[in-house]
Structures are given as structure tokens and as C-alpha cells.
């Protein structure tokens, strides 16, 4: 604000200088009389003409006035700075700020105050200059000038002096010569000169100074009032776009399915496969697929022609390895349909890339995409198998192999799980809640998790081989040293964590407990206990390990007020959630990775909107939460009770 005040004062001074120069020039007539009418017209009319032209410009080209001023003025300032300073950044900054200022109402008001101050200074100093000069020099005054006839000059003087009568009285305003024609001390000439001086001063005061002062004060007052009634701007945005539909929706074409719905040839084995839009960067295909004859790709008209020419009529099926993240559009549908027509037998559609899809899309979009593929398969009457070929578990691997061999899915689809072991695990958590109020303590938690692991260990497949080398090393960990274990998991698993999960507080919260659980589990369960966990379970643990270690090593200098260590209710919630998660994970052993994901997602749904572990105030709250968790997980898994 000081800058603005200074700028306004500067404008006032500049106006004063302009007024003094103009008045001085008009009073200097080389011995001749001052052309009073012309002088008044120039001194008063000039500023008004300027203001009038500016106003008309604003009115006439109103639509463009904002951008015009908004561009010219900032550009001018920017140019001046660039010329004087040579700093393009400063120049751009000044131009930007000026543009912002002009764009705002307060900026325009400030500009009006500046303009008013300039002309007020101009008028005031003009009056002072008249008095100053005429005090030193006896000037002559007349009506006419070189460009103004005497009669017109007289008329102007008469008209302009009429409203000034209350100030001037009834002046004669006759022409008066300067010395030597009229003596400087001639009383008559002196009186006439005084009348002319008063006329000019009053004219400037009434016709210019007073209106300008009034205008300036009004603008300043309006600015003050606007500030006093200031509210943040929440203007409704003017619409800068419009929408219109050019034509009606086109109905999607019908495609005649090659096979009647229901006849899916599920018992027929596959002896060959093709890839459908599967990217070259996808993981290598597993042996179950590469053991089949490779018919190449189905992604261009040439490759389609090649596949169809090779395929001939066969009694065995073809497996189509499609890419789940791709959209199952009409093109995909037509290609599958054409292949089906060529073979005369329904193919097996293997949907690969589930992990990629889940990593890059939200759960809702991933679910929609999967549904779209299933709908397409259903409409074409073909069998579909979602199978993430890069992250096969023992179950999904054998399921894939079985389907390719023509073994009906009903022999593979597990029936809803018996919740017995889950109930036993939750009972352990319940007992710990009653027995040790210090459940949030790591040692108590480890004991609890060990017990849960023992319950499930009987079901573990000891002969399974790990799909993650790092997972097989877990049994080497020292369960008494969870911190080291967490560090190891972090180092090995962090890079595997999908991007989407990195930002999900819920997973990280669970992972913290999983890290501890993994260490505890290593003591009682074989590595196989972790084999069928999706990669992110372990890597989530890694991230959370960092969180946990970080929590344990907060610098002592951290202000206590800012300590983010969770409260007792949050710690109890975190521990119960972790123990329940581990229980669910082990209960889900052998399931497909997508089923485990779904179970954990359901568990997470129980948390608040902030996706943090639940806050459980006491044992009762924890038990209620466990009951709800059990119901959610079991219901989602088929509801066997």
C-alpha cells in the first residue's frame, strides 16, 4: 500500500509540473496580452477532452476495453523495465502484476484515484502559477488569440464567467494592456488585471480542480468502502464453452455369435494358442501355455489371415491369451468371433494382465473391465479364465493347466471355504484381548500371531515351491529380532510394490503388521505359508516396515506436541486389524491372487474414509469389530457358515 500511495503522490507531483509548464507557457506572450479565453479553454478543456476521449473509447469499445488496457499497460510497464533494467524476469513479473492489478476492481479504482490526483495537481499548480507569475509581472489580458476571434473569445469569457458570479461578483473583464502601454501601477488597469486573474483562477478551480478533487475523493472513498465490505471473490464463472450434439447415437452393430450360448466345449483340451493384443513387454508365458502350438498373434489383418489359414478344422480347442487391461471392443469381439467361426469350436479365453490392470486402474474400473470381458465371452458363448500369468500361485497354475487339458472348471472351483480356521484365529485374538491388555505391544502381538500361524500350519502345503525367491528366505529370519526382519523385507520387496498401493494408507497400515507377522510366521510355518500371498502383501509389509522403524527411531528433539505416534485406541486398532488380516490371509491359502485381494479389500472397507486402521477404544469395541470383519470376509467368500 505504501507503494501505491507513493505512486499516487508522484502522479500528483507530475500533474503539478505539467500544470506549471502549461500555464507558464500560456502566460508568456512576449509583451502581448494573455489570451484569457484560449488559456482557459486549453487548461480546462484539455484535461476534459482527454477524459472524454478515454471515456468514449471505453464506452464505444467496451467489449475490448479490458483486454486492451490489460494488454497495453502491462506491456508498457514491462517494456520500460526491460529497457531500464534489462532483466526479462523482472519485466515479465511487473507486467504480470500490473495485469492482475488492472484485472481487479480495486486496481481500476486505484488507477482512477491516480488519474484524479494527477489532474488535481495540474489544476492546483496552474492556479498557483497564475498568481505567482502575475505577482511579479504586470500582464495584459485580452479575448482574442491567433486562432480565436475576438468575438468568440468574448462570448466564451462571458459564458464561463456567468456561473462564477458568486465568486467574482460582476467583473467587467475588458481587455487590458500590459506595460508600457498601460502602466503597471495604473489603478484602473490593476483592477482589471485582478479581475482577469480571479476569473482564470476561479475558472480553473470550479471547472477543473473541484470536480477532480471530488472525483478522486469519491473513488478513494469507494475503494475504502469496498475494502470495508470486502469478501473473497467467489464469482460465478462465465461459461467459456458450449456443447451441442451433432447427430443421434448410433446403435452398435449386432455380431452373430459363431457358437450358440451354453455350448462352451469345456471338456475339450487346447492344443494351440494365439495372442490377442498382448504387449511384447508382458512377462514370458508359462510352460502350460508354451507347451501348446504357437499360432502367433491376432492383431492385424495379415496375422489374422495367417492364423485362419493355418488353423483348419480341428477337434481340439485354441486358447486365446488376451490382455485384460485392453478394452474388449467391437474389434476384439469380431476377431474372436471370426477365429471361432474358422475353427468351428469355441476357444478358451485366458485373460492375462490382471495385476497390470489393478495397478493402473482403480478397483471399480478394474472390476468393470473384467465384467466387460466376461460379458463378451458370455455373448460369444466361450469359456473364460482370468489368470495373471506373471503372478501364478500354485492354485491358479494348476487351474490353468487343468482348463487347458479340458478338465471342467467345476472340478477346480473351490467350494466356499469353511470358516472354522478363521473362527479359531479370531478366537485367539479375542483371548489375547482378554488376557493381555498390552496387545498393541510388539511382543504380545508376535505371540498372538504365532498362535494363529500354528492353527493354519496344518493346512500348509509343505511341498510348494516359492514364486518369489525372497519369500523362501523368510524362515531364516530371527523371530526375536523383528526390526532386522522388517529391514530385510523392505530391502527385498519394496521395488515390487504396485504404484497404486504406495499411496494407500490402508495397505501401509496393514503392511506394518504383516512385516511383524511374517517374522513371527517364519518361526512356525514353512515358507509355503507365504508362497501363495500376492507379491504386494510382502512388499506392503516392507513399506510398513519403514514406517514402523521410523516410528521407533524418531529423534528425541522432535517436539512432543507434534509426535505422530498413534494413541492407544489407534494402536489397539492397528494390532487387531493386523492380526485379523494375517488370519484372513492364511485362511485364504491356496486361493487365486484376485480372491485374496478381494478378501483384503473387504476387510479394508471396514475402515473409515481415511483408510487408516480402526480406532478401537477397548476390548468390547475390538470384539465388535472382529465380528463385523468375520461376517464381511466370510460373506464375500461365498457365505459358508
Amino acid at each position, binding site marked *: *500500500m505504501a507503494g501505491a500511495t507513493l505512486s499516487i503522490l508522484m502522479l500528483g507531483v507530475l500533474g503539478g509540473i505539467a500544470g506549471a509548464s502549461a500555464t507558464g507557457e500560456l502566460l508568456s506572450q512576449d509583451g502581448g496580452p494573455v489570451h484569457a479565453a484560449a488559456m482557459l479553454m486549453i487548461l480546462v478543456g484539455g484535461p476534459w477532452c482527454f477524459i472524454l476521449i478515454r471515456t468514449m473509447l471505453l464506452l464505444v469499445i467496451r*467489449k475490448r476495453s479490458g*483486454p486492451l488496457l*490489460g494488454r497495453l499497460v502491462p506491456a508498457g510497464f514491462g517494456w520500460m523495465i526491460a529497457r531500464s533494467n534489462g532483466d526479462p524476469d523482472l519485466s515479465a*513479473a511487473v507486467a504480470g*502484476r500490473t495485469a*492482475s492489478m488492472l*484485472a*481487479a476492481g*480495486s486496481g481500476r479504482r486505484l488507477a482512477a484515484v491516480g488519474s484524479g490526483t494527477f489532474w488535481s495537481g495540474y489544476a492546483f499548480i496552474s492556479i498557483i502559477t497564475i498568481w505567482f507569475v502575475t505577482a511579479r509581472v504586470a500582464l495584459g489580458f485580452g479575448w482574442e488569440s491567433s486562432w480565436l476571434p475576438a468575438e468568440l473569445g468574448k462570448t466564451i469569457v462571458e459564458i464561463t464567467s456567468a456561473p462564477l458570479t458568486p465568486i467574482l461578483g460582476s467583473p467587467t473583464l475588458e481587455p487590458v494592456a500590459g506595460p508600457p502601454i498601460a502602466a503597471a501601477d495604473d489603478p484602473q488597469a490593476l483592477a482589471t488585471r485582478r479581475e482577469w486573474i480571479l476569473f482564470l483562477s476561479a475558472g480553473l478551480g470550479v471547472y477543473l480542480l473541484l470536480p477532480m478533487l471530488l472525483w478522486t475523493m469519491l473513488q478513494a472513498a469507494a475503494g475504502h468502502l469496498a*475494502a*470495508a*465490505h*470486502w*469478501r*473473497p*471473490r*467467489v*464469482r460465478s*464463472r462465465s*461459461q*467459456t*464453452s*458450449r*456443447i*451441442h450434439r*451433432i*447427430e*443421434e*447415437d*448410433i*446403435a*452398435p*452393430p449386432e455380431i452373430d455369435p459363431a457358437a450358440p450360448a451354453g455350448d462352451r466345449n469345456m471338456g475339450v483340451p487346447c492344443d494351440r494358442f494365439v495372442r490377442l493384443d498382448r*504387449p511384447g513387454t508382458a512377462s514370458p508365458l508359462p510352460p502350460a501355455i508354451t507347451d501348446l502350438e504357437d499360432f502367433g*498373434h491376432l*492383431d*492385424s*489383418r495379415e*496375422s*489374422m489371415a495367417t492364423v485362419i489359414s493355418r488353423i483348419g478344422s480341428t477337434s481340439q480347442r485354441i486358447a486365446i491369451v488376451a490382455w485384460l*487391461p485392453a*478394452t*474388449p*471392443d467391437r*474389434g476384439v469381439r469380431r476377431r474372436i468371433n471370426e477365429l471361432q467361426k474358422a475353427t468351428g469350436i469355441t476357444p478358451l479365453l485366458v485373460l492375462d494382465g490382471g495385476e*497390470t490392470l489393478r*495397478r*493402473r*486402474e*482403480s478397483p*471399480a474400473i478394474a472390476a*468393470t*473391465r473384467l465384467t*466387460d470381458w466376461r460379458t463378451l465371452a458370455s455373448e460369444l458363448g466361450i469359456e473364460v479364465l482370468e489368470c495373471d500369468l506373471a503372478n501364478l500361485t500354485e492354485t491358479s497354475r494348476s487351474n490353468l493347466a487343468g482348463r487347458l487339458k479340458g478338465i471342467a472348471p467345476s472340478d477346480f472351483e473351490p467350494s466356499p471355504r469353511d470358516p472354522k480356521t478363521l473362527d479359531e484365529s479370531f478366537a485367539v485374538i479375542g483371548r489375547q484381548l482378554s488376557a493381555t491388555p498390552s496387545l498393541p505391544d510388539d511382543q504380545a502381538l508376535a505371540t498372538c500371531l504365532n498362535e494363529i500361524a500354528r492353527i493354519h500350519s496344518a493346512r500348509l502345503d509343505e511341498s510348494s515351491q516359492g514364486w518369489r525367491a525372497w519369500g523362501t528366505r523368510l524362515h531364516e529370519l530371527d523371530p526375536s529380532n523383528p526390526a532386522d526382519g522388517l529391514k530385510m523385507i523392505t530391502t527385498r520387496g519394496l521395488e515390487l510394490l504396485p504404484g497404486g498401493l504406495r499411496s494407500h494408507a490402508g495397505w501401509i497400515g496393514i503392511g506394518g503388521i504383516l512385516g511383524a507377522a511374517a517374522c513371527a510366521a517364519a518361526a512356525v510355518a514353512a515358507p509355503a505359508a507365504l508362497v501363495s500371498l500376492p507379491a504386494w502383501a510382502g512388499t506392503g509389509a516392507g513399506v510398513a516396515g519403514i514406517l514402523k522403524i521410523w516410528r521407533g527411531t524418531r529423534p528425541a528433539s522432535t*517436539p512432543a*506436541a*507434534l509426535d*505422530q505416534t498413534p494413541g492407544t485406541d489407534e494402536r489397539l486398532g492397528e494390532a487387531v486389524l493386523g492380526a485379523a488380516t494375517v488370519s484372513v490371509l492364511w485362511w485364504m491359502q491356496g486361493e487365486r491372487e484376485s480372491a485374496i485381494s478381494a478378501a483384503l479389500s473387504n476387510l479394508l472397507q471396514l475402515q473409515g474414509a*481415511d483408510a487408516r486402521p480402526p480406532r478401537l477404544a477397548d476390548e468390547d469395541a475390538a470384539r465388535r469389530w472382529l465380528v463385523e470383519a468375520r461376517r464381511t470376509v466370510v460373506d464375500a467368500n461365498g457365505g459358508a457358515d
Partner: protein
Amino acid sequence: MSDSPQPLRIAVVGHANTGKTSLLQTLLRRRDFGIVSPTGGTTRSVTAGEILDEEEILAIILDTPGLEDSINLRNMIESSRTDRREDPRSLLDRFLASPAARDSNELAMEAASLEAAMNADVLLYAIDARDEPQPRHLDELAVLGMTARPLIPLLNFTARPEADADSWRDACARQGLHATVSFDAIVFDDAGEARLLDAIRTLAPARSDAIDAWRRLRESERTDAIAGASEVAADFLSDAAAAIIVTEPTSRDATDRERAFDAATATLLDGLLEHEARAMHRIADIFGFSGREADAALLEITDAMGGVDFADTASLERAGLWAAGTGTGLVAAGAIVDLAVGGISLGGFTALGAVGAAIGAIGGSGSKILRRLRGQDEVRIGETGLTLLHLRQRATIDAFLKRGHAAIEPARIETTVSETFTTRTDDESEKLLTEARGHPTWSRLSRPDEWRAGRHPRASLALRIATSLARHFDG
């Protein structure tokens, strides 16, 4: 007949689900344009979005159905070729006149897209940069090439970690398309939009005036939005900085006082949360979003400050003004009386004047003294908390500046306390906020009944803070 030129026509074309409609939503700043769905083939007709400056149409952008079956499309178009040298455009004309291109037929949607493309000045070929270039994309480019329209490959979703823009640039370059532009419809980037407009300008030089006007329009919208959002943020921050909650009068018992302090702290924090959420909604509205589109992490303010502060800026200012003005006058008057009575008073009047000056100086803090005597505390937000709120307001504005109108997931405002130690605020607003301290009547939080916006110093301060905040986003 009007001499004004036809508006620039841009057709957004590409495979299904590459974000064509999303792109239009962001370019038009309209969430209500079209339907965005993970299911392919949602757009089943050509829809136009117009960029308007006042009532003048600067450009028309056409959203087209996806080229879902480009293999079949290319096959059908090229199979009608009878002469190797035949003009590709006549092949397209022949295809468009064929039964396959008619409504409800096999390639009707592709035909609608091609027709829109043929009548456009520039084509934007939308690419989901997370996908790998596939032969079907080459088919699409080959068919679009037959329209003889300038084409800009537009890489969408480039802000996602899975995006592989380089592969696409390489693939497009192999097709002779070198003016590839990255523009994410979800994570908005001014520079990306400017690059896109530059590319369009290069390919449609005759329409450079319209593109320049479009660019200016967006720049002025951005400036206005930043100014408005900064004012809302400054208003909230002024409230937060000035807020003082006075605890209920209690006995001298420490537990009672602690309980009263906790209650006042809770009132303050609840008020802060409520006002912050309101400010967030208003900022969202300014940027053309709804308040539900911002999702702030839990506010971690735990450093409310207590105690009656006699040394806040406002109290010191009041005391200083008194001491420098009336107080000095009182002392001087006392000294004159002492001199007038010839020293008989032994300087008593001067001392009296000094006492008066001192009483006056602390008089402004009378209510504070009274509170102290009653055992009341004043609770206000601590410096760290204020910095956190400041950073969160900045983060909120930043989030909406970088949010495309096609974004679905709420913008996360994740600023945490730890960032207050590591992030420089870079502007003078922090300093300015201290000026609001000690003016509880400037805050809706502490005196909702007494609060009046019509306090010139508060308004002036808020405007200065807003200017300082806005400066952060300039450039």
C-alpha cells in the same frame, strides 16, 4: 453474408477408451461433456464442444466415437481400391457411401468419426500412453492419413508411471508423425495445453488468431481463478491467525484449568476444520470443480498455544501508539506544571504524567489482565499449525490448478506437519499473518457474533496476504 471466418474445427479421434471424451472435458473445462466410462464404445455419436470468448466461437472441438474395429475398417477401405494411384480421399468417400458405413451397420461409428475428421482443420489422435503401440493403431493412423488432414498424435495419461511416451513417439515418428504432444487429461498442465495449442497453430497457421485468443482466454481464466482462490485462502488464514478462544472461567485447580483449556482447544480445532473445509469448497468452485473433489488428509494440528499473550503484535502496537502519542504528552504536561510551580512539586506532576502514560499503555490490555485474574486462558493456533494451514491452502490451490476436468478421483491434499519443517513458504504471507494476531474480532472463529467483514485493516491485510499467495502461483 458475414465475412467472419469459420471457427477452427478440431476432431479428436482414436481408438476406444483412449480418453477422447476426457480430453474434451479438460480442454473445454466442462465436467458435464459426454460420458466417461471404463467400458469401451460409450461415445456413439459426434458431439461438438465450442470454445467461446464472450459470444465469439474460437474453436469447435469434435468428440468422435472410437475407431474400435480399425483392422476391419482399413481392410474394407483398401479392398475397394481399383487403381494403385487412386486418391485415398476418394476411397474414403466410397467407403462412406457404402452400406457398411450406414447407421447400425458394421462400421457406422467408424464412418461417423471419419466424416468428422474429413471436415476438420486439425485432427488430434488420442493415445493412451500406458498401452503399447499395436498393429491396430497403425491401421488407425493409416486410415486417418487418408483424410489428408494434419494430425497431431496426442499422448494422454502421460502422468501415470506406466506411461511409455518414448515408445509412442518412436512409433509415431516411424509413421512420419513428429509433432507428438503430451497432454494428460487427468493431471492438468498449463504448459502441456500451451504445447498442444502451439502444435495446432503450427498445423493450422491460417487460424492462428483464434488459437492466440483461445490461449489468452485460458491465461486470463487462470489469473482470475488464482486471484479468487488466493482471496478465499487469505480470508480463511486471516480468520485462523486472528482466532482466540477464551477458556471458561475456572477455579485455580490445575485439572479444571486443563479441562477448560482442552475444551477451548477442541472448539478452536473444530472451527478450523469447518472453515478449512468451507474454504476448500469455495476454492473448488472457483476452479469449476465441486467441493467433493478435494480430499484433505486429517489435519494434524496439535500445537495450539495457550496463556494470555500480552506481547502479541496488536497489543504492542496499541501500547506503542499510546506511549508515543498521548503518553508523551502527559509526561510533557506534567513536566511543564512542575517547572511552572518552580520545582515545589518535586517532579510529582511529571511522575503523575508518567503513571498516566503507563496506565494508558497497558489500558488496551485491560481485558487480558481481567482474564488473567479470572484464571482464564486464551487459546490460539500455534505457529506450526498456522504454517501447516497455509501450506494446505497453497496445496489446495495447486491441486485444482493441476486437476483436469476429466479427473474422477478426488484430489488428495496430503500436506503434513513434517512438511512445515522442510517446505519454504517463499512468500511474505507468513509474515503478514502475524499482523492478524491479537485481533480476535477479525476472526469468525473467535467472535462469530462480533465479526464484521467491514474492518478495513482486516480486509486490507487479507488482500495483501492474497496478493502474496497469488504471487506463488504466478508463472
